[in-house]
């Protein structure tokens, strides 16, 4: 068996978020991190490796600098890394992204006992769509919002979180799970791992460009990139400038505030 982990490099939105005057994100000026939910997915895969000795492959789609993040995943304990990168893939929405990543996973190959791990959602888009869409493209059963995983033979029993509780779900492998941060505490990179993460013989870094994926039936001009994306951004804008805030100074400030919150659908 093996574990395949989908990871994404994202701008660190917990720090300062820089927005350009045209309403798009100024990614160049922001630090990048590995998406937090994806680290939980990697940790879940590494725990499976601890228990079974299975191989852990990490895969991402992104520009060439995303290689650094993949090396970090190796330093944490992953075995192999796949970087899907190509200008043909640029501008992809979640639909097109899942087509491409699924094609990349087809190159890795999915065996009967394999598990694909994704983070629930990325902090830049917050869509939580790519994981389930990859599962659909690969015809795998999925369980999302996973907060606990127990493996018994060829099946996994997972705890799937709901807003008001949880479900216990049994799923056969191969399958895809999307993980939430509460699943685990990601391990640090090990000294040995950092030492070895640039050793391409031990830990291959395989770049999958358009040429490497183009023969997969999932890859068509009208299913990838900006042209293959069903959704388009019609307008992008910043909310009105946050002023100094509104001080409620009337005779009944609590009532005034409740009225404003209700009018703005905040409550």
């Amino acid at each position: 068996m093996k574990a395949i982990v989908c990871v994404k490099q994202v701008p660190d939105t917990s720090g300062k978020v820089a927005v350009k005057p045209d309403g798009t994100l100024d990614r160049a000026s922001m630090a990048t991190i590995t998406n937090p939910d994806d680290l939980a997915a990697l940790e879940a895969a590494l725990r499976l490796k601890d228990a079974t000795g299975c191989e852990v492959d990490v895969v991402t789609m992104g520009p060439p600098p995303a290689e650094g993040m993949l090396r970090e995943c190796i330093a944490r304990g992953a075995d192999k890394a796949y970087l899907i990168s190509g200008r043909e893939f640029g501008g992809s929405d979640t639909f097109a992204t899942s087509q491409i990543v699924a094609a990349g996973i087809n190159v890795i190959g999915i065996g009967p006992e394999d598990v694909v791990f994704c983070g629930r959602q990325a902090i830049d888009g917050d869509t939580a769509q790519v994981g389930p869409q990859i599962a659909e493209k690969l015809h795998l059963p999925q369980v999302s919002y996973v907060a606990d995983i127990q493996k018994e033979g060829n099946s996994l029993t997972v705890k799937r979180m709901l807003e008001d509780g949880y479900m216990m779900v049994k799923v056969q492998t191969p399958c895809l799970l999307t993980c939430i941060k509460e699943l685990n505490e990601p391990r640090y990179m090990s000294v040995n791992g950092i030492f070895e993460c640039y050793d391409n013989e031990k830990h291959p870094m395989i770049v999958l460009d358009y040429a490497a994926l183009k023969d997969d039936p999932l890859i068509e001009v009208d299913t990838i990139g900006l042209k293959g994306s069903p959704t388009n951004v019609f307008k992008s804008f910043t909310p009105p400038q946050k002023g100094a805030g509104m001080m409620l100074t009337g005779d009944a400030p609590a009532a005034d505030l409740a009225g404003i919150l209700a009018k703005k659908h905040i409550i």
Partner: protein
Amino acid sequence: MAYDFRDIAAFKGVWVFCEQRGGVLQNTDFELISEGRKLADELGCELAGILLGNDIADETAKEVGGYGADKVLVYDSPLLKDYTTDAYAKVICDAVQEFKPEVFLIGATNIGRDLAPRMAARLHTGLTADATHLDIDTTKYVEFLKESSSLDLSKQTFDYEDRNLKMTRPAFGGHLMATIICPRFRPQMSTVRPGVMKKADFCADKAAACVVERPAFALTRDDIKTEVLSVEKAAKKMVDLIGADVIVSVGRGISKDVEKGIALAQELAEALGGGVVGSSRALVDAGLISADHQVGQTGKTVHPKIYVALGISGAIQHTAGMQDSETIIAVNKNETAPIFGVADYGIVGDLFKVVPQLIAEIKAAKAAK
């Protein structure tokens, strides 16, 4: 006729996925039906709910009619009792291919956000995540931009004949808003953030007039690759600052009666829709509240939908951990407290007096909705 996701003219009608848990319709269903009614009126088409479950009575289904649905499609089977991705995606995708709705709305719940992407991938169409505003009519959309954006609209041109669904959503913790369209394929799909769309007043006559249809469908146990072993309701909620939509934090300002201050914070969080109590470092260091409540540089970084700071002065170490919250409310005795610099709404006053009033007013405002 074969199903063609590109044949835009063949798609008619607005559909809303009506989610039930344990046979009970969810509040989100009514919000989305109410919003769907507006869109259907703008398009001049029918609004239908689609409801999957086991032993669904007509009376249950008709309830969504009371919020504006013309009809409800009910798919009833023991295999649909609890949500599974496989069963629900199959039945609904088959229904979409049979009836071809133009717009499909799904609540952005943990279930909706599992179902919708799977459907969109299968149907080869676009999906917008967690929308907070929807428009068909361009005139109304431009009005919305006037109120809610910093765009200079005098420099923008719009096609007022455009009938695409314009789906607006926040990104990057609310720093950016994006309006998404799906111009080439149908249905136009969006998950919609719970609690945002206004629920219409329930109308018993409309509920009674609502048509319940039970179309034939194909589903076998072999279609479902997962098995739900149990569904558990949460016991007492743990302090989950990161996942909370509402955080009411307390600071040194509650020192004179810590117990009451925390109780008020909890009560306010409940009134605001349910949430957790956070705190400033000062209270943690003083041993008055456990460290898992702490927001800020040495505590947790949070961006809930609503953050309330009670009696917190707002040192940079605290604000660094909460300034990206969508709406920030501060109550403090000291009008020069730096917390008011990051707050959207501020009230100067004694929190022990202000908060009980606020709780009462919020409850009243919600009841009036």
